[in-house]
């Protein structure tokens, strides 16, 4: 089962992304097309451009949507932090991402306010473009983070090498998002062209041309970006659901592109509803595709934080200090039963139990023979010889003198 390793809360937060990304796309797409359309309108005095810009700005998602955008992003970052404690999401990151997003939304609205008050000066444009750029920059950061979720092995290294945050896969995911934005926006533009009971035919045709200019280059770039994303993801992230979702995205993008160009090729009015619906449907497929990759990678095999690039001294890994000179070892101050118990539980108990035979004989049958003769038991542990033909030879475990002393005393203490 693909999702068995993904916690339920993470799956629920995925559903939040389904709302979040199209909303963010509306802010970026509608804002950008409104600004560019108005700017061109000022240059060539084409009133349709002004009308489209006004309509887009009028219907731009409001402050409540902006708050929803911030809340859903904050919530999802919190869910990630909750489930993947090893994933470094410092307070500064939250502050930057949410702060820049909030100010981006505010700047776009300020620009809208200025345009609606007829302040069509460069300052209003500058504010609008900065707002859009800020929102886009936030999604660049967020989607680079999504790329990071496919390589948990880099998480512990981020503290020392913050540039590892950037990845080609993150760039690909950002590119894919930015290619989906114009598709949805083109759908909105087409719907605006049919607005009202008696829509203007010329304006409708203008929106059809505009939609092609906005969405076609992005749609043509989308399959390349999807394939680029697949190739920059680790092979571990590949799965049949991921590949099928990619194929479906390419097919749907081809369908939108074909429907989109029909009015320009004499194929009748644009099917605005269909284009807007597919433009919207591409987002959940794209989110599911991203989650499909993460579901395969973020497993206990890769995630156990204790396994992520911690340097383990050789002795600690082997549970021994056998490489150290014996003289130093023998300076152990006293009998250390706690240490002996640790060695017993971590090493000896693998093959021996007290009262039954496992791989080797039960302790109850062999340890009493060494009662009062700890040195003999230590000699055997140090250099095990095959004694009983019914059992395989005990391997030399390479324990340190201190461990041998501790475990021998511990075993005899249990017999006493």
């Amino acid at each position, binding site marked *: 089962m693909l999702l068995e390793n993904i916690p339920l809360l993470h799956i629920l937060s995925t559903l939040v992304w389904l709302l979040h990304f199209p909303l963010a796309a509306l802010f970026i797409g509608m804002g950008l097309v409104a600004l560019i359309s108005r700017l061109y309108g000022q240059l060539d005095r084409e009133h349709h451009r002004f009308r489209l810009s006004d309509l887009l700005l009028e219907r731009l998602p409001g402050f409540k949507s902006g708050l929803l955008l911030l809340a859903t992003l904050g919530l999802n970052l919190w869910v990630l932090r909750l489930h993947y404690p090893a994933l470094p999401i410092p307070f500064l990151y939250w502050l930057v991402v949410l702060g820049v997003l909030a100010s981006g939304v505010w700047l776009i609205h300020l620009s809208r306010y200025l345009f609606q008050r007829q302040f069509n000066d460069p300052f209003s444009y500058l504010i609008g473009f900065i707002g859009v750029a800020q929102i886009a920059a936030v999604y660049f950061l967020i989607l680079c983070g999504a790329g990071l979720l496919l*390589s948990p*092995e*880099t998480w512990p*290294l981020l503290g*020392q*090498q913050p540039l*590892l945050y950037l990845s080609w896969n993150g760039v690909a995911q950002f590119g894919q998002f930015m290619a989906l934005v114009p598709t949805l926006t083109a759908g909105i533009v087409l719907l605006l062209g049919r607005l009202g009971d008696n829509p203007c035919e010329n304006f409708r045709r203008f929106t059809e041309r505009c939609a092609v200019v906005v969405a076609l280059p992005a749609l*043509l770039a989308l*399959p*390349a970006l*999807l*394939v680029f994303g*697949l*190739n920059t993801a*680790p*092979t*571990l992230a*590949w799965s049949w659901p991921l*590949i099928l979702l*990619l*194929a479906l995205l*390419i*097919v749907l*993008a*081809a369908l939108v*592109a*074909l429907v989109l*160009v029909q009015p320009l*090729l*004499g*194929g009748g009015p644009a099917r605005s509803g269909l284009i807007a619906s597919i433009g919207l449907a591409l987002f959940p497929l794209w989110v599911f595709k991203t989650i499909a990759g993460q579901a395969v990678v973020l*497993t*206990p*095999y*890769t995630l*156990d934080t*204790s*396994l*992520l*690039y*911690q*340097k*383990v*001294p*050789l002795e600690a*890994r*082997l*549970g021994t200090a056998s490489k150290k000179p014996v003289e130093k070892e023998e300076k152990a101050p006293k009998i250390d039963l706690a240490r002996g118990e640790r060695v017993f539980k*971590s090493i000896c108990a*693998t*093959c021996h139990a007290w009262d039954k035979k496992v*791989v080797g004989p039960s302790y109850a049958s062999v340890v009493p023979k060494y009662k009062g003769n700890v040195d003999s038991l230590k000699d055997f542990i140090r250099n095990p010889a095959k004694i009983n033909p*019914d*059992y*395989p*030879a005990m*391997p030399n475990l390479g324990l340190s003198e201190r461990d041998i002393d501790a475990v021998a005393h511990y075993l005899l203490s249990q017999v006493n």
Partner: protein
Amino acid sequence: MRLKELNWTRLIITGIILGLFGLFLGILAAQTGWWQLYAQTPEQPIDFPHTKHAGQLGLACTYCHIHVEKSREAGAPPLSICMGCHQKIATDKPEIQKLTRYYNEKKPVEWGRIHNLPSFIYFSHKRHLKGGVDCSNCHGAVKQMAEVKQVRPLKMGWCVSCHRTYDAPLECSTCHK
């Protein structure tokens, strides 16, 4: 329909769009084929449970992979190590009987290799273990894997990130002898 009545512009543009998207679908299909043929975990001749040995029993990796601290290759354990315990243990299980047949017939078990480095890479297990790298850093939580698979990219950028973090050598000749 006569040839003259065909809308050639429409046909050509539709063809270009379909061709472009078809091309990328073809690339996707080809890559899926490569993934299926070459990037899958190989089937093993014996169903060896790391979950039992490294997981439940807690055997150290070095208990079976005896060469890992002494040589470049970790290597598969000699069958005599397996038979040390399995002359007595779980001898009724079909996989152990298979193992015993290999041992008695003195045939090597042809394990499928999971972690492959290109032939032009010099990599030494011995050096990495001495440097304090834990097996799981590169192999993941093998003791939890019912079927062992590669969970790290084993790509140059991945190696270099770790070398840089721990001040390991970064000269080209370290890995490209």
